């Protein structure tokens, strides 16, 4: 594999990025040009953290919501993002990621305790914190699941969301990346009247080894 120190051109960097996750992160950071590419870069970094957290689920067993979220914040910071927890942003949003050009990505995080509790987080994000302006067209809902079969719980939540919010114009879709532990909901932000998109991330943290 080519070493990073010998990279000279964009083509070489893109080739290397497909083989090395860290270089992929670097390339995404370099390529942020608008709120959408910024959101996508944050989402990719969030997915990386979810993979790591799932692999190390035993470390998260005793943790509370905020403590788990701090691990994500730390990962985002180390990946080059200005990420904070509990910043005053129309209240206390769990994850606030800012870009120097004014782009903002927000997320709420909930330990799964039934669709009602997840719904509270969704409403906090979409009706309290999200500005829904051009600089902040997307956000995330992180669902920490300590029970087996995270996919089942994500599907239940999606079904509840479809049932309760489709009349208000919220539409869900599968994640275009093919990741089955993420789905997307599109809505019109009440405050701005502009389109707003939420990525719903299942974070599988069940750990109960049988041997």
């Amino acid at each position, binding site marked *: 594999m080519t070493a*990073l120190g010998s990279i*000279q051109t*964009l083509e070489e960097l893109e080739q290397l990025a497909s083989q090395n996750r860290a270089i992929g992160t670097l390339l995404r950071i370099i390529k942020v040009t608008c709120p959408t590419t910024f959101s996508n870069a944050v989402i990719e970094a969030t997915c990386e953290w979810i993979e790591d957290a799932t692999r190390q689920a035993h470390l998260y067993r005793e943790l509370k919501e905020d403590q788990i979220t701090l691990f994500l914040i730390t990962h985002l910071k180390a*990946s080059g993002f200005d990420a904070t927890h509990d910043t005053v942003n129309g209240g206390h949003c769990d994850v606030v990621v800012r870009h120097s050009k004014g782009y903002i990505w927000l997320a709420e995080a909930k330990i799964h305790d039934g669709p009602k509790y997840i719904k509270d987080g969704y409403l906090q994000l979409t009706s309290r914190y999200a500005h829904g302006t051009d600089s902040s067209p997307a956000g995330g809902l992180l669902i920490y699941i300590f029970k087996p079969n995270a996919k089942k719980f994500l599907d239940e939540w999606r079904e509840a969301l479809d049932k309760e919010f489709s009349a208000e114009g919220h539409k869900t879709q599968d994640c275009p990346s093919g990741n089955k532990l993420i789905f997307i909901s599109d809505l019109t932000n009440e405050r701005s009247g502009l389109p707003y998109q939420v990525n719903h991330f299942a974070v599988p943290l069940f750990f109960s080894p049988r041997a």
Partner: protein
Amino acid sequence: MKLEAIMRTIDADLSRSPPEVREAVKKVVNYIASQDNFKSLLLTFAHIKTIANTSESENLPFALAYLCGTRGYLAAVFEIEDHGEIIRFDAEEISKAGEIGVLINPHSGEEIQDFKSRAYIHFIAGPSWSNAE
């Protein structure tokens, strides 16, 4: 922003990162701060590898991602030689060209063929240094 304040920010941001990444980041920041005219700084990956003196496959990409991230300590620029002149593009211009598959020479108005293989990456001091002036 004073160098000590930047170092404190780096320590806080990278408190849970491998110490090697933190040290690599600090070496590059110290290097930029030591330059008489940081505006003329133009670093290649090879330069940064030498300055950071760390593992290329693990620590260096994370250090560079942090440096190029929203703190704005470094910014990537791309230089392309076209019809005998060197043209500099910022990352936004190159990224947009990547999306549509076409990069236009701003002087001639003509398309630059095979721009990805001809776009040489350099790093300049990022916006945080200008804000510090």
